[in-house]
């Protein structure tokens, strides 16, 4: 096992990793930018090092400064959290060559899954179902036209190097193709310095369901059920739950097997998530794999009663998987992402938290780096708290979440608490009848206000 771990991240996920590390008996090192001087992770770690100015590219993405901090503090492992350097294969490579363990999969895995087009081809070879689309990167518009005509509209253009919804365009008619192709290409070029695109059939009424996988360095692979993430806005998840109200035991078996097969085929060795689109007929298609801990990992931890981050650290240290194959889902879990944003316009609302009261009680879990008097820096994402609940059934979990959110008080900044309460009482949500289009009804409503 390691003796000291540096957490190359901030906010709630930095605290999550600090907790896991302390429970494992490891010393912790926080790194921070100048605008995070008063952020909680700097106060709760054993040591802290300032690595740069507010701008993420000069601090949380500054590989030389982060590695120097690890070297100076004699940390023997680096946990990247999510975002920032978590899916940067070069960073994973440099860590390894500096003799510091990167808590994540092998750099080659990050590289493979980072290229959405290559990942598709590899999954096809692993016999995991993929959405019909171009087998390779499409070179030009005429090729795009040909493929799109063959598949039939609507289609979706995606950046090969993409993620986070950038370089992604839905095309509904052939007349739109040219314009959208150029836009997607430009977006991909500026966001990822790689204009390569590929085309997929667009599934309009699909669900976004992902499978959590844990694999060690000894060939053991285990899938831990699904997370239903269809409640999303602009490819950003808002509420997640497990089990999915749509997934039955038969589908769950098929999907977990597909994810385990995929992880085994590529030789994956860490915590990872395989994302699938599931259509109305319960057919599922591989979308992408995330080679890191997910924001929504707490709901899986709650229904399986496990600690994924501790397991991820143990695996990185070379230990065998400690989870048994007999692990069973117990109850129902939901997570709401509380963001510092206007609940109607969705625009970010940074500022000082004058007062905050977060919920508690049996079956309620809060992951947050917020505190009273904390000035939320405008430089990073707007997530201020993740509230998760565990209850014996889905209706009870929803009721518990409503109770928890009603007791939550945040003064000084705007938050999306009201939006969550609206969704939780939406009859389609309570009936479990929803897909990735669900949030559009709220956006349309808001657009009418303008």
């Amino acid at each position, binding site marked *: 096992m390691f003796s000291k771990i540096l957490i190359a991240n901030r906010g709630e996920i930095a605290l999550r990793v600090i907790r896991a590390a302390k429970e494992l008996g490891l010393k912790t090192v926080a790194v921070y930018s100048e605008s995070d001087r008063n952020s909680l992770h700097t106060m709760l770690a054993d*040591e802290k090092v300032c690595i*740069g100015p507010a701008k993420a590219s000069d601090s949380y993405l500054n590989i030389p400064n982060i590695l120097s901090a690890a070297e100076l503090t004699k940390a023997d492992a680096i946990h990247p959290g999510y975002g920032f350097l978590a899916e940067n294969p070069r960073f994973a490579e440099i860590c390894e060559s500096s003799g510091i363990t990167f808590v994540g999969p092998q750099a080659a895995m990050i590289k493979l899954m980072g290229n959405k087009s290559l990942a598709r081809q590899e999954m096809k070879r692993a016999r995991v179902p993929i959405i019909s689309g171009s087998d390779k990167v499409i070179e030009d518009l005429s090729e795009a036209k040909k493929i799109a005509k063959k598949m039939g509209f609507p289609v979706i253009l995606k950046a090969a190097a993409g993620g986070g919804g950038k370089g992604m365009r839905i095309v509904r008619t052939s007349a739109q193709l040219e314009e959208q192709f150029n836009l997607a290409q430009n977006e991909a070029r500026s966001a990822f310095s790689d204009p390569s695109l590929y085309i997929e059939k667009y599934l309009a009424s699909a669900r976004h369901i992902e499978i959590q996988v844990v694999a060690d360095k000894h060939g053991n692979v285990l899938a831990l059920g699904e997370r239903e993430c269809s409640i999303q806005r602009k490819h950003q998840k808002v509420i997640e739950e497990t089990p999915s109200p749509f997934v039955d035991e038969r589908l769950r078996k098929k999907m977990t097997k597909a994810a385990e097969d995929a992880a085994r085929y590529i030789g994956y060795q860490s915590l990872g998530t395989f994302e699938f689109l599931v259509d109305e007929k319960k057919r599922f298609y591989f979308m992408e794999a995330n080679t890191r801990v997910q924001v929504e990992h707490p709901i899986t931890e709650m229904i399986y009663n496990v600690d994924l981050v501790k397991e991820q650290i143990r695996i990185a240290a070379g230990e065998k998987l400690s989870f048994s194959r007999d692990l069973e889902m117990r109850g129902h879990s939901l997570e709401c992402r509380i963001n510092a944003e206007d609940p109607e316009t969705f625009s970010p609302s940074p500022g000082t938290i004058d007062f905050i009261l977060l919920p508690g009680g049996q079956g309620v879990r809060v992951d947050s780096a917020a505190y009273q008097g904390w000035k939320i820096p405008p430089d990073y994402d707007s997530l201020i708290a993740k509230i998760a609940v565990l209850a014996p059934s889905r209706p009870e979990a929803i009721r518990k979440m409503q109770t928890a959110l009603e007791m939550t008080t945040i003064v000084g900044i705007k938050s999306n608490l009201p939006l969550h309460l609206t969704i939780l009482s939406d009859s389609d949500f309570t009936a479990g009848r929803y897909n990735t289009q669900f949030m559009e009804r709220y956006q349309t409503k808001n657009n009418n206000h303008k």
Partner: protein
Amino acid sequence: MSDKKIDYEEITKLVSFLEEKHLTHFELEVEGFKIKISRAQSAPPSPMKIASQEVSSVEGAANSAIPSGPVVIEEENHLHFITSPMVGTFYRASDPNSPPFVEIGEEVKKSQTLCIIEAMKLMNEIESDVDGIISEIYVENGKPVEYGQRLFAIQLLVV
């Protein structure tokens, strides 16, 4: 002093006395009249809680010079601070057997090398971006520094 009350002039004198003696805090009580004067300390930010680092031998040629990090100018004292532009190990000389680049009281010119910060096995020369006199060196040779940490205070030459 007992037969006259403290006036503006007296206070000004006290303040300059404080500055002259590099004091940060001063209290005086005369016949029920109490005065407390304190001034901001130009001390470095709290050091990292890092176990002292062994001074590794300085190897390899010095690399291209790096401009220093964000600088703070205290207009009143004509003090200019050179801060670390990166995380690394601070060295006052180009190798363990050479004399330090600069000492307190020494006059430095713009672009003159003040120290080296070793990061990722590379030696980064940190240059002065002003003309002046070194009035403070905040870090010991061989100690780790973090981004934005004060390295030197330079007394600007008043024209």
